[in-house]
């Protein structure tokens, strides 16, 4: 979740680059051309071990925390992604054998395990594993043939966001956003899976909104097209854009959400709140996974252990306004952030916000992932 927001962060980073003189640019181009032609870069002090990682911009925070990299003489090489699926593509396109660690939405783990992209996790090599929230560790969806495929390390949900100063009452149902009073003031975000996690359940009444027949999938997209064309202010590219729109009073309710949006919007001087309507909502959980043929397995396990240890988890939570999984880190959180996520009643919370699988890959009882994408593109075109 929040994928597009993170891709924007990465793009903004690129946009801020380059304040070089013409001479420096020309010299750099000549050097780059020569170096590429010769297959080598000019001398650069190298650490003992180069470790490659793929994930969202900002997800590297816990890795950089403390002295882990220096202590282990690691040259850390991150690759930032614009979607979870990009990782799968990159692993398939030559990343296997060259990648040490990835961070992945849990729903894709079965697919990746089936296609041989992941190594099973040996929990005995992660000293902090037993400190992680058991409700996440025990999920069947992160196991394949009984073996753990990913270590849960951050999570969140997709609540309905609203402007308390502009709504007549707190929305009780997702369908309340279609009331006339909100016409043209509904925020949508182009987050394919996130939208399905919510509206699959709202339209069909099924608790797992991602496991639908083809007819149900069509009905879900039809409903979303109705919202987009008749009620939405815009189909925002990122959650950050949605936050901006709330801050500018352009929207007052949302068809999708993320707890972090409330934190960002508050930083812009605007208070918005969120609620989980009676139909419930979707939840997301990102996992640390080891790609097949990981080149530095021992250090990768050490890195995973470091990422899920208390202080890096606290730092990540504070920086990204994210939910974390190490229970020892929870008391370290600032008051506002600790209150944002219901660490004290996760069971109750998970009744209302459900972890749901990605639609299946093979045809059968349910519409496939490809069926979903084809339908979702109908929504994008509308």
């Amino acid at each position, binding site marked *: 979740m929040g994928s597009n927001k993170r891709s924007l962060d990465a793009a*903004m980073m690129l946009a801020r680059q380059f304040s070089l003189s013409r001479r420096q640019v020309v010299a750099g181009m000549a050097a780059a051309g020569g170096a*590429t*032609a010769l297959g080598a870069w000019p001398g650069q002090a190298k650490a003992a071990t180069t470790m490659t990682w793929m994930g969202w911009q900002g997800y590297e925070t816990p890795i950089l925390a403390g002295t882990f990299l220096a202590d282990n003489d690691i040259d850390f090489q991150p690759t930032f992604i614009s979607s979870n699926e990009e990782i799968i593509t990159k692993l398939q396109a030559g990343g296997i054998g060259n990648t040490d660690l990835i961070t992945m939405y849990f729903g894709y783990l079965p697919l990746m395990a089936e*296609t041989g992209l992941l190594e099973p996790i040996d929990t005995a090599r992660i000293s902090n594993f037993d400190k992680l929230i058991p409700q996440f560790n025990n999920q069947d969806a992160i196991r394949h043939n009984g073996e753990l495929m990913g270590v849960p390390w951050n999570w969140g949900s997709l609540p309905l966001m609203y402007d308390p100063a502009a709504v007549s009452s707190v929305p009780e149902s997702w369908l309340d956003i279609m009331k006339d009073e909100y016409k043209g003031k509904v925020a949508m975000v182009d987050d394919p899976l996130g939208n399905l996690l919510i509206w699959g359940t709202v339209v069909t009444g099924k608790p797992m909104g991602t496991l639908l027949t083809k007819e149900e999938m069509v009905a879900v997209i039809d409903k979303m097209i109705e919202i987009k064309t008749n009620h*939405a202010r815009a189909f925002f590219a990122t959650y950050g854009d949605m936050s901006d729109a709330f801050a500018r009073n352009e929207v007052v309710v949302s068809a999708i959400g993320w707890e972090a949006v409330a934190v960002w919007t508050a930083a812009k001087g605007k208070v918005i709140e969120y609620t989980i309507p009676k139909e419930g909502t979707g939840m997301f959980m990102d996992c640390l996974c080891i790609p097949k043929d990981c080149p530095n397995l021992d250090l990768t396990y050490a890195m995973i252990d470091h990422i899920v240890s208390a202080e890096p988890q606290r730092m990540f939570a504070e920086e990204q306004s994210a939910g974390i999984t190490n229970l020892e880190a929870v008391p370290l959180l600032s008051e506002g952030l600790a209150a944002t996520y219901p660490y004290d009643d996760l069971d109750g919370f998970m009744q209302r916000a459900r972890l749901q699988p990605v639609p299946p890959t093979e045809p059968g009882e349910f519409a496939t992932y490809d069926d979903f994408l084809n339908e979702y593109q109908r929504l994008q075109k509308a």
Partner: protein
Amino acid sequence: MARRWWPIAPAALVFLGLFVAPLVYFLIISFWSVKARMMRPDLTVANYIATWVEYGDVLVTTLAIAAAIGFATTLLAFGFAYVIRFKSGPLGPLLLFVTLITLFGGYLVKIYAWKSILGIDGILNMALTGIGLIDEPSGAFIYSTNAVVITLTYFLLPFAVLPIYGALRSIDDATMEAARDLGAKPLAVMRDIVIPQCEGGIMVAFTLAFLISAGDYVTPRFVGGGASMMGHFIETQFSIGFDWPMGSAMSFTILATSLAIVMAFRALLRRAIRP
């Protein structure tokens, strides 16, 4: 003889390795298929057929928006370059500098600048409400195709001004003065001397503006409010679609149709300026 080519060898290697080779690779895989998320070598045109069947409407919309941006940008750029070259006297270099200075801003920065200008609480709405043209701020300026056209036209304008200005600079003042002395009216001078000698610059300007717009998918996402152009769906195939062959076929389809439109524009321009 061979030693003459050594200096360009590094650049040629980079060009071949980083441009030609990937292009050939994507052309080849556009005829492949995908099974179980893995690309399979094949020789099928199914991806090209699917591009027209499933994305034909998006393709037409994309080309229409890109053409609108191309024409608007070229027209504005021609006017601006003409003023710099012939009408601004000693202020010409300053105007050219002002044009170039807009290139220093980043792409995303410009997009966000236009979001600020066109938004409900933006400068445009403030100005219109300030002078009493509208009673309350309008949400119609942003999150629409018009916003995409405005933003991309602004972004591409400097790229279009430069080639046209370069072409205009090569026009000899004496030729224009001779035409005027012989009784040619301003419109005739423009039609028979300026535009024909500026044809190359106009073509480059239109081609740049049109091709960049046709391939863009970031601007529509941020100021179009969901306005979808072909680039967005190509991105989808390469990312969450796991279908590089389909994405490649879509890319080469829009490349081919775009080139066809550029060639058609060139033919029309030549016919229009033929004496």
